């Protein structure tokens, strides 16, 4: 047990969320320098091998659902398998928490459970002469946290989906649950694996399932284009991850976390200065995060992912898959330290992470203001929230980022599920300009109330779980000694205000005002929308078969309502760690982060700092609440009190040349997709055409034809020999004999005496 850790953790236990940084030498010194790194060696315990059922249960569900899909068996059994396996996984996760976490919190050592061998290449006995990656598990604090909320949310959302996808029981039901089961299995592999190759396996697996599920409605060209786009952009990120893994192995000789962290702890900060191989690792990891969590230049796939069914959006693109990037950053936090890559590079890496997160948050928020499709609004809000989490890790608080992940998973899932319920009921109508007053519609009240809760959390209503978690990030940023980081904090604050505005814009438009329900395109059961990627209606189609005039909305059923209620309660309870912090003396989430590889960043900001000359805690509270109030008020004015005012404002903006770009740009996502298509897309198309021409003309025409003609050519050389006359053949024979004789006599025998 490392003594250096002990004081830190004792203090953390006493002071809760704002533990003193005495144990860390350097919060004041440089924000990348966290002092000497030490990591507890994992405790190998095969007694926990029952954890393998957490992985095997979803995989068994995969096999069963797959069988159902292949054999085209109809029925609801796939949902039963899926929900059942998720329940089992969740139960096991809880069991692990209850059984093992006391050990974790006392010994601070992660749990290593060997399950099997996978890759075991050893060509020597030295340090860089083996590549070992097994199927073992490595459970530390963040793994535990992810295991818990992923399995629980997956269970709830699978239950929701079993009703939501009812209309597809005859069609793709089994396929849907196959992909969902596979997804959860991959996600669990991702978080629980004990080496980077296992993480990569899970990474790829979730990407694949995302592809499968976005393109679930495979007959729609929009969905197909969206899933390809998602996969390709994910792939760009995967390239970064792969290269990072290669560099890690090259520089540290191992890909297993245990050995890796020990190696980093043992490395000397002095020798790593200027080593570009090691310095590239954090940037490549950042590229992977951008791909998976829709950050930076790779964010455009997430809005298009809304072509998938809503449960998919809730599970994958809000709560779990996109948080895999944050998991990666937390897990690989040791790489962003001065000891690993040198102070100068570490600072640059952290700043890059922070800026990308911050910029993405801001851009996401601005685009969300201009969308009329409420699912896309939530998609952009996810991008924005993920940006916050990434920013949190970049400004130096893994605790803030992870805590926000935890709370965000709940309320974002809630938001998507309520959006799904509305869509489901309104026959696929996603334009909130065509809906209104749903709070008054019987059957939708619960849904709209849940959505209100979700929007409030999205807007970081004071004292909400979301606010408590997001404010940790902002606190860390605004009180940072580095000036750039403080700018990030101010920008984040501004983004919070914008977020509040657009969140309530949606809710006010949907819930208040006169009741208006224009059914969507699924009214007659066919889906015939031609959408462009930036259209207002990029959403999935449920085939409902509502015939007849007089539209009757389809109120959510028991399962959907139950799940919504549970998740709403869960969102509120997600704030418990902060609510109970004072009583318990510790923050439940922070305890996890402290006992993980991200422990070096498990606090938020110095205890007594100043923002704008005032005490930091108070100032932040005032500022945060202030921007939220401003945003909500603006939304109220423009969309609740007088919706016509909001409409007129928009029209006026469109008319004014100076402001027109603001409105249309926001609506079109600042034309990022068009820019990509014009530059990268066009360049790729040109290269592809060149290659095509080369293939047809050069390869097929010239090379293949030439090679094909060679035998004929060679044969024609010898054709005159085949005269059909025996003496001609005998002549050839004699010629051969003559040649042999000449060779033997003149060349071979001349080697001797002559």
């Amino acid at each position, binding site marked *: 047990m490392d003594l250096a850790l002990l004081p830190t953790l004792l203090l953390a236990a006493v002071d809760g969320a704002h533990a003193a940084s005495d144990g860390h030498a350097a919060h004041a010194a440089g924000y990348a320098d966290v002092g000497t790194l030490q990591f507890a060696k994992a405790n190998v315990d095969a007694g926990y091998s029952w954890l393998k059922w957490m992985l095997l249960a979803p995989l068994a569900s995969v096999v069963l659902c797959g069988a159902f899909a292949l054999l085209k068996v109809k029925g609801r059994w796939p949902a039963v398998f899926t929900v059942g396996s998720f329940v089992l996984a969740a139960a096991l996760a809880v069991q692990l928490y209850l059984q093992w976490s006391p050990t974790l919190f006392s010994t601070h050592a992660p749990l290593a459970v060997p399950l099997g061998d996978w890759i075991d290449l050893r060509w020597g006995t030295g340090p860089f002469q083996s590549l070992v990656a097994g199927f073992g598990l490595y459970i530390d604090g963040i793994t535990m946290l992810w295991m818990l909320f992923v399995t629980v949310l997956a269970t709830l959302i699978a239950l929701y989906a079993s009703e939501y996808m009812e209309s597809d029981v005859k069609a793709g039901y089994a396929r849907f649950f196959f992909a969902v089961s596979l997804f959860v299995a991959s996600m669990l592999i991702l978080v629980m694996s004990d080496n980077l190759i296992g993480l990569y396996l899970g990474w790829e697996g979730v990407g694949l399932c995302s592809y499968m599920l976005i393109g679930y409605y495979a007959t729609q060209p929009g969905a197909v284009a969206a899933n390809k786009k998602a996969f390709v952009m994910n792939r760009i990120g995967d390239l970064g991850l792969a290269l990072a893994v290669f560099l890690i192995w090259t520089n540290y000789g191992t890909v297993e976390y245990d050995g890796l962290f020990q190696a980093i702890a043992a490395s000397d900060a002095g020798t790593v200065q200027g080593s570009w191989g090691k310095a590239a690792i954090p940037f490549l990891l950042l590229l992977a995060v951008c791909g998976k969590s829709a950050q930076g230049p790779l964010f455009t796939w997430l809005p298009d992912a809304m072509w998938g069914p809503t449960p998919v959006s809730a599970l994958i693109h809000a709560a779990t898959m996109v948080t895999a990037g944050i998991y990666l950053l937390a897990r690989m936090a040791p790489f962003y330290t001065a000891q690993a890559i040198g102070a100068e590079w570490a600072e640059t890496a952290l700043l890059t992470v922070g800026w990308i997160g911050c910029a993405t948050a801001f851009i996401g928020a601005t685009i969300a203001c201009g969308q009329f499709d409420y699912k896309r609004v939530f998609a952009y809000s996810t991008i924005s929230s993920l940006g916050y989490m990434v920013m949190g890790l970049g400004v130096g608080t893994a605790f803030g980022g992870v805590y926000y992940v935890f709370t965000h998973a709940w309320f974002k899932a809630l938001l998507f599920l309520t959006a799904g319920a509305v869509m489901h009921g309104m026959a696929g109508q996603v334009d909130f300009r065509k809906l209104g007053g749903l709070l008054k519609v019987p059957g939708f009240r619960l849904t709209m109330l849940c959505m209100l809760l979700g929007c409030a959390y999205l807007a970081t209503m004071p004292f909400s779980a979301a606010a408590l978690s997001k404010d940790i990030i902002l606190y860390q940023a605004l009180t940072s000694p580095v000036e750039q980081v403080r700018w990030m904090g101010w920008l984040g604050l501004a983004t919070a205000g914008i977020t509040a505005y657009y969140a309530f814009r949606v809710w006010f438009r949907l819930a208040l005002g006169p009741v208006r329900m224009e059914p969507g395109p699924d009214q007659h059961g066919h889906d015939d929308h031609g959408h462009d990627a930036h259209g207002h209606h990029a959403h999935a189609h449920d085939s409902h078969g509502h015939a007849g005039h007089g539209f009757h909305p389809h109120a959510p059923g028991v399962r959907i309502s139950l799940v919504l209620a549970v998740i709403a309660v869960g969102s509120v309870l997600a704030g418990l760690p902060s609510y109970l912090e004072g009583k318990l003396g510790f923050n439940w989430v922070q305890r996890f982060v402290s006992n993980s590889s991200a422990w070096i960043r498990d606090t938020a900001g110095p205890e007594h700092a100043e923002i704008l000359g005032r005490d930091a805690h108070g100032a932040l509270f005032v500022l945060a609440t202030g921007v939220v109030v401003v945003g909500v008020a603006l939304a109220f004015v423009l969309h609740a009190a007088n919706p016509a005012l909001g409409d007129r404002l928009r029209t006026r903006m469109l008319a004014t040349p100076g402001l027109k770009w603001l409105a249309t740009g926001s609506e079109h996502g600042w034309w990022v997709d068009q820019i990509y298509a014009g530059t990268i897309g066009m360049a790729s198309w040109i290269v592809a055409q060149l290659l095509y021409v080369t293939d047809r003309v050069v390869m097929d025409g010239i090379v293949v034809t030439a090679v094909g003609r060679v035998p004929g050519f060679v044969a024609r050389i010898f054709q005159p020999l085949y005269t059909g*006359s025996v*003496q001609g053949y005998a*002549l050839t024979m*004699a*010629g051969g*004999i*003559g040649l042999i*004789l*000449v060779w*033997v*006599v*003149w060349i071979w*025998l001349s080697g*001797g*005496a*002559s």
Partner: protein
Amino acid sequence: MNANLFYAAAALGAVVLYLMMERRPAPFRAALSVAGLSAVGLMMTAVARSAPSPDAAGHPGPFWVHVLLALVAVASAARMVTHPRPVYAALYFVLVILAVSVTFLLLQAEFMAFALLIVYAGAILITYLFVLMLAQQSGDQANRGEESAWYDRTPREPLVALALSFVVLATTGDALFRREGTMPWDASPAMVSRASARAWDRLDDMPAKLETVARDAAVRAEPDSSKHAALRSASLVTPETGPRLRPAMNGAAAMVTLRTMDGQDVTVTLDGDAAPTNSEALGHALVAEFPVSLELAGVILLMALFGAVVLARRQMELAEDERRAAAGLPRIGNDDALRRGGAA
């Protein structure tokens, strides 16, 4: 060996043979013959110069007889190859066989000499001649006043053939004669003793002949003619160990013991005259050392006999079918291929 002379002579011979292939006026022909024969002679000179001077240690034929026979054989062979009329070519071949046969005699292969004459000249060549004459009978005989068919007059690619043969001849000769010291032109004493030992062993293996020869030798050696009768009825003594015939004087002679009727042992010395003749030796060798090959040769001849019968049968069948068809009788046999492809 004088390699350059050898190659040059061979080249000259090739040129001569090429020129001989077409019909030439008489003086040219004479010149060609002279040139050809001299080419052969030069070749021999080139080769024989490397041999040590002849030593009259034994009595194989003198050098010049060999040369003469060689000239005859080569000239006949050349004429055979170039003659436009097939029958003459065959007859020239007979001349070649004669020359070669006499060479065999000089090489002390008497049996082979006469076997060659009987088998080759007497059987094979006669067969060839028969066939030639038969085939010529109904073939295209005379066209445009020529005595021979066009395909007999015109050689096929003479240049290439001659070039190739020249290459074969020259290189083989080169390989054979250029190696000084590796080819044992002189029989070593070991070889000699081995050969004589073999000869006495052969005689030892022929007890009847041995007895006769021993008796004759004993009679010749015994001046007292009263004992001749006893000696003529003496029998061979077979010792317990060792051969009856014991070589002596380095293999030039051998000793054998005879026992007369009244138990007297007479040791007889046999000299070279008593050794088995070439035919006897060959016969003994065939049966004692290569019986399997002998049987196989018989089998080959049997196969040839079968083949000939089969080939001939078809013709007979063909002829039969035609005759029966002419007489309006149904066919015998059902060989469709024959019917379809049968000659008129």
